[in-house]
């Protein structure tokens, strides 16, 4: 009941594939949707929010479907990537006017609108016309509109686009806060190092298909055809490399660019860690051992390829 569920969902635009045979269950927390242009991220988000209807299958959000809008849209908030706004409105009027459709009293509407505007840090600009807003301000007012009715499922299509570094950091903090409150926060992003910062889990898409889903480390563990890359910080990287080369677990070992460590690629991480412990007992001072390729960027490159644009 508390999940976003895709049950064999396909969407075709005429003969053009949007997404195909999506079988997915997204738990609460912050989930990032990653994939190149045209991979189906926005289609997937529009399907969740009922802006598109699946050609096949069904989408259920916390037990609700868009065909029952009076309940569904009290639970779901969606900030789309579309940069359109009703003409002539100020930021405050924009948030207020759509809140009125929820049936809140005028006093509650104004209070909730200001609360959302404060959360995105736009209080000073709220009485001004949206037509005069920068791209970043438009992004934030859309976010305020999406969260104003306090949804428990928040869908955000490229929400960090156009934000300056400070606003980015504040917005990421807001996403994490919402995730901790037990909400679903589903974000599409093409900035992969931010995906690591933001997400509890990722959904990776390519050409209309989901190619991987789950926690990034879990996804990395399942990529068996790419040896695990491990960075060992130590005092004698050359000696350690010579020792490790003799072991069958090690596929590759090279000195790190700064000379203070060793990058090792291995197909059997567990036995490799035991081996390193054994070597450490024989005179090598090891400062740290950490996986070097279990971030979103590496996983993305392994699964989808670095040549494709991630937007």
């Amino acid at each position, binding site marked *: 009941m508390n999940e976003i569920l895709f049950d064999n969902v396909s969407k075709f635009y005429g003969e053009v594939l949007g997404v195909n045979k999506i079988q997915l269950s997204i738990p609460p927390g912050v989930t990032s949707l990653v994939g190149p242009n045209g991979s189906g991220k926005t289609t997937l988000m529009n399907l969740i929010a009922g*802006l598109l*209807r699946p050609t096949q299958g069904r989408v259920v959000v916390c037990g609700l479907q868009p065909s029952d809008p009076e309940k569904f849209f009290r639970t779901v908030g969606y900030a789309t990537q579309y940069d359109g706004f009703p*003409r002539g409105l100020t930021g405050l009027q924009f948030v207020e006017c*759509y809140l009125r459709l929820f*049936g809140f009293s005028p006093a509650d509407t104004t209070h909730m609108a200001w609360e959302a505007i404060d959360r995105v840090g736009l209080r000073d600009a709220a009485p001004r016309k949206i037509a005069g807003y920068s791209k970043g301000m438009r992004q934030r007012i859309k976010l305020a*509109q999406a969260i104003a009715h306090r949804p428990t499922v928040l869908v955000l299509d490229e929400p960090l686009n156009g934000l300056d570094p400070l606003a980015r950091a504040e917005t990421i903090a807001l996403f994490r806060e919402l995730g901790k409150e037990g909400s679903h926060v589903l974000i599409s992003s093409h900035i992969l190092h931010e995906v690591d910062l933001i997400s509890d889990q990722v959904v990776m898409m390519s050409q209309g298909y989901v190619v991987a889903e789950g926690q990034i480390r879990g996804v990395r563990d399942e990529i068996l055809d790419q040896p695990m890359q491990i960075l060992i910080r130590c005092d004698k990287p050359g000696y350690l490399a010579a020792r490790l080369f003799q072991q069958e677990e090690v596929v590759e070992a090279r000195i790190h660019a700064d000379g203070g460590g060793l990058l090792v690629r291995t197909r059997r991480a567990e036995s490799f860690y035991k081996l390193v412990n054994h070597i450490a007992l024989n005179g090598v001072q090891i400062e740290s051992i950490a996986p070097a390729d279990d971030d979103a960027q590496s996983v993305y490159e392994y699964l989808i390829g670095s040549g494709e644009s991630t937007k």
Partner: protein
Amino acid sequence: MTLWRRQILAIMRIDLAKTFLSRRGLWIYFLALAPVVPMMGHWMFGNKGDHQLGEDVQIFAGIFQFYYLRIAIFFGCVGIFMNLFRGEMLDKSLHYYLLAPVRREVLLAGKFLSGLTAAIVIFCSSVVIQWISLFAHFPPELMRSFIFAGPGMSQLLSYIAAAALACIGYGSVFLWAGVRYRNPLIPAAIILVWEGINGILPALLKKLSIIYWLKSLCPVSLPSPGGNGILNLLVVDIDPAPAAIATINLLLLAAFVLTWAAMRTRKIEISYGAE
């Protein structure tokens, strides 16, 4: 107040401001008020000694039937009602409504009522202004007896009612076209031709139009130009319907078209890239 009523009021509040105050809609005011200029000219610069009340009643009826119903209200409703959905698609702002807890039927009703309110205010008030402009120069005693003892008041009310029903009829059709078609101007052109040739259509087909019923509501028949010309067919209604029947049929037609449009709104998907 029930939720759907509050939602309709909220939709009207958003859309009425857009319809009344939009710069894009200025031409609709021009269409509605255009007849006032010649009527005031007739009042201010015409030779008042030559003016006959009966003649001016015919002039008003001619302008109302040929310009006001067929052009001003027709195109005014194209501008107002087609933009209710299609304009928001072009502005990429329709999705805000579709992401609110509003049933699509309620959204359609709210948008239709806001369009209708704007159209009725603009076009019915223009009827009153035109009527005053044309008749104000007659002596007060003559006007008093024309309005209160003669047919003046009932004629004015009939014109207002016909204008309002024209807004309902054309409004429903163009709202449907805006929901149904990506380029609603093509169906609008087809409807314009259909309404234009209504006078030469067989009796049964005539009734599948809006102008036929509206002509039946006009209180003053236009004199036949004589001969067998096509103008004769446009002016003379061989088989006019009683006003009550015309009103009911227009309302039924609007209800049917709006129901169809409401069913269609359930299928609306947002793909602005394809617009």
